[in-house]
């Protein structure tokens, strides 16, 4: 079944206008030489040896961080979703927390703990009697460690969504012939490959376009070069040219993923049937518990305790919250709206891509992934160029522009998230419903959406959380007089108000966690209704 034409057209229009058009605008400006302070020649556009070095740093970080995130995230998802691990419900909520703490905050906490004269190094030095700090956080492995811990929930969130919808009959069939370990490894996990790859790619993209964390950990990375073109040399053309390798790397990755999944079916024929199997862990139970416990200890307890210690008494929270109430409200409403629009558009786009055939499907798929790895500063500049003109000034001057920025930035992530879930959905279910009613919206609303709701919820939450923390794009397009919460937090950070920054981060965390629980509760509660 295809969705109504108007819906498909509207969703693609959102994608093209929000995400693709600003990039086209940038490309045009760059080609036209607008903003190039010096006459950039073709030779300048080739990477210099030091830029190659930076690119290889960035690639090492992105590969390392996504591998670490997958190594943590997939087992974590499996253990909490499919075993009888005691405490799995708590684990299944707490793992979201690292996503709700800005990655820079993770980096600051770890850099202080593991600095040469930090508490961890001191203790190790005293107990082991060695002179140098044993753990170098200010290094590429240090960056990989922090990014892996900060972003593994992407992998867990999506893998859990996939695990819930795996066809139980396939697992049961496998269990008839082989033991649980082998059936998990050879049947269950391969069936959620689209989900875990999507999560891993998210980590990769964030690790390769972001320089906040490496910057704090004193590692030079490639995206800084793009930033330098803007902020030190004011050369838009060179900045655009430098962004191309990032796009190429990401598209290559998407291609690799498509190749890995080629010719395989992920369809679950018994979707919606509740009662996925939970395995008993037996003697491995304490190991699994230790694993989940130490992951959360490092990624949740450590930063939260460090922030709470820095924030101090309750008074700090009351004071900072009072001053930040308006910006919290702004961020919350903008992020919710953006997440809603993005999730719906992503659903329609992913659905229409999957229902198209052959070469068209492949090229649509690639097209949706083009804006993935665009550094926020470029996207922001592109959005200004596109929308800040007399005809569309009314939009540019309004707060809706921030929503446009969020949608532009995060739509590819949402599409990726929903795509995996839609791949599990058998088109036969929709076709069968078609026999009963010609109303395609009704089919989508009553059959398709409920069946992929976990993927949709994951997409919604991912966009919501990312938008709540977004800074690069919103700073460039936010209308004067409006303030989002991250702008406020980073402003205080510069001022050196550690206590306020920590308290505000924890307030932000609590608000985001409440929204996450509400959304997960909505989608979870529904399961019983349709079971």
């Amino acid at each position: 079944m295809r969705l109504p034409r108007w819906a498909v057209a509207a969703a693609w229009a959102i994608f093209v206008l929000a995400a693709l058009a600003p990039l086209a605008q940038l490309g045009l400006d760059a080609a036209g030489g607008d903003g190039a302070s010096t006459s950039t020649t073709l030779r300048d556009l080739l990477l210099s040896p030091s830029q190659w070095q930076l690119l290889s740093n960035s690639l090492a970080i992105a590969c390392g961080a996504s591998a670490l995130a997958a190594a943590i995230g997939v087992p974590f998802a499996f253990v909490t979703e499919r075993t009888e691990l005691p405490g799995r419900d708590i684990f299944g909520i707490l793992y979201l927390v690292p996503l709700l703490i800005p990655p820079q905050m993770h980096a600051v906490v770890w850099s202080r703990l593991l600095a040469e004269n930090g508490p961890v190094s001191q203790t190790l030095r005293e107990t082991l009697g060695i002179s140098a700090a044993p753990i170098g956080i200010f290094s590429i492995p240090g960056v990989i460690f922090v990014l892996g811990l900060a972003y593994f929930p992407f992998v867990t969130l999506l893998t859990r969504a996939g695990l819930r919808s795996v066809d139980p009959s396939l697992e049961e069939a496998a269990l008839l012939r082989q033991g649980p370990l082998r059936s998990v490894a050879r049947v269950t996990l391969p069936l959620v490959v689209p989900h875990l790859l999507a999560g891993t790619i998210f980590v990769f993209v964030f690790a390769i376009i972001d320089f906040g964390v490496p910057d704090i950990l004193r590692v030079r990375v490639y995206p800084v070069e793009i930033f330098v073109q803007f902020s030190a040399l004011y050369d838009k053309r060179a900045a655009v040219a430098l962004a191309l390798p990032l796009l190429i790397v990401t598209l290559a990755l998407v291609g690799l993923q498509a190749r890995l999944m080629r010719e395989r079916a992920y369809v679950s024929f018994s979707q919606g049937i509740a009662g996925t199997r939970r395995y008993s862990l037996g003697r491995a139970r304490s190991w699994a518990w230790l694993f989940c416990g130490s992951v959360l200890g490092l990624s949740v307890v450590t930063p939260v305790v460090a922030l709470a210690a820095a924030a101090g008494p309750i008074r700090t929270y009351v004071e900072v919250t009072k001053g930040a109430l308006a910006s919290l409200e702004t961020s919350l409403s903008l992020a919710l709206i953006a997440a809603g629009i993005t999730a719906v558009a992503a659903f329609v786009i992913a659905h229409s891509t999957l229902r198209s055939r052959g070469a068209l499907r492949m090229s649509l798929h690639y097209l949706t992934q083009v804006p993935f790895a665009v550094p926020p500063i470029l996207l922001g500049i592109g959005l200004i160029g596109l929308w800040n003109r007399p005809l569309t000034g009314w939009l540019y001057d309004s707060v809706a522009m921030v929503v446009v920025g969020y949608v532009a930035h995060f739509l590819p992530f949402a599409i990726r998230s929903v795509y995996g879930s839609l791949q599990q959905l058998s088109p036969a279910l929709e076709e069968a419903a078609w026999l009963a009613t010609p109303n395609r919206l009704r089919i989508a609303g009553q059959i398709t959406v409920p069946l992929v709701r976990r993927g949709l919820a994951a997409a919604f939450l991912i966009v919501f959380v990312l938008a709540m923390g977004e800074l690069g794009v919103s700073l460039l397009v936010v209308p004067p007089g409006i303030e989002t919460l991250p702008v406020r937090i980073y402003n205080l950070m510069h001022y050196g108000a550690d206590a306020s920054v920590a308290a505000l981060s924890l307030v932000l965390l609590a608000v985001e966690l409440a929204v996450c629980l509400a959304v997960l509760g909505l989608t979870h509660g529904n399961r019983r209704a349709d079971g």
Partner: protein
Amino acid sequence: MRSRLAWVGLACLLALGRSAAALGADVVVYTSLDQVYSQPILEAFEKETGISVKAVYDVEASKTTGLVNRLIAERKRPRADVFWSSEVAQTLVLKDKGVLAPYRSPSAEDIPAQFKGPEGYWTGFAARARVLVYNKNLLGLSDPPQSIFDLTKPRWRGKLAMAYPLFGTTATQVAAWYAVLGAERTEAYLRALKANGVVIVNGNGASRDAVVQGEVPLGFTDTDDVNVAIQAGKPVAMIFPDRDGMGTLMIPNTVAFLAGAPHSQEGKRLIDFLLSREVESRLAFCQSMQIPVREGVKKPANVPDFGDIRAMQVGYRDIANHMEQAARFSRELFAR
């Protein structure tokens, strides 16, 4: 579930409408001075004139260039009336990009000529100094260095923090060295710093923090960053380096009027207000301890007289002209 979602959507739309209703701006200012300092001053202007101010505050994560790039990108349809920078070099870049329009404020008459653009495109006030911050616990008994040229000596090997010199006031400082010392000496000095194990951190605040935490005893940073730590009771102090030599670089706040400003009268009034002696005094009294560039402006005792500082003799235009050269060299040198 559907009705619940509808309510959520409605609530969001209402919130959006409320934010949008707050838009009827009377004067729009983009500022890179920390919000904690700039917001109270803008509120005082609102109170005094009844003109409401809509501000966009920059953040360190974008290293004060986010707004500069936004202004350049918005050039064809300017939204801002006033740019209030905590820096000077980027304001000159904006002038060169044709983003600014000249305005000679009557409030600026008693500001010394070195802090004013010759054609009236920008005016400087309330300066910070590029200083060395040191940890008193670590350097308590020994003498802290008095010149930046001491820092390449073996004694300070691995003991100095500096922000990545492509951004912020650190970039300005390196460009100032280019202007004063010439390219050859500056580049030799930067190479020597690198060879002496300078720790490159992600901002002046981080440089200060590395010293406060005792990770290194010394760091390049700005007076406001050090003063915040001193006020918080941290064991640090500052040195105005090279009092017997080339002097300490002073970096003023700058205000500029934008070409094609949508609210030009109100914009000019805001500039007049920002350049008043009262505002300069307020900035001296707040934690950022900005040093008044005019004589006789009221200030607390810990803020030095501008006349008592040996300020580096360098024109800000000269610094701006060396920014690109400095950036290109630093980029290669500190790439790894």
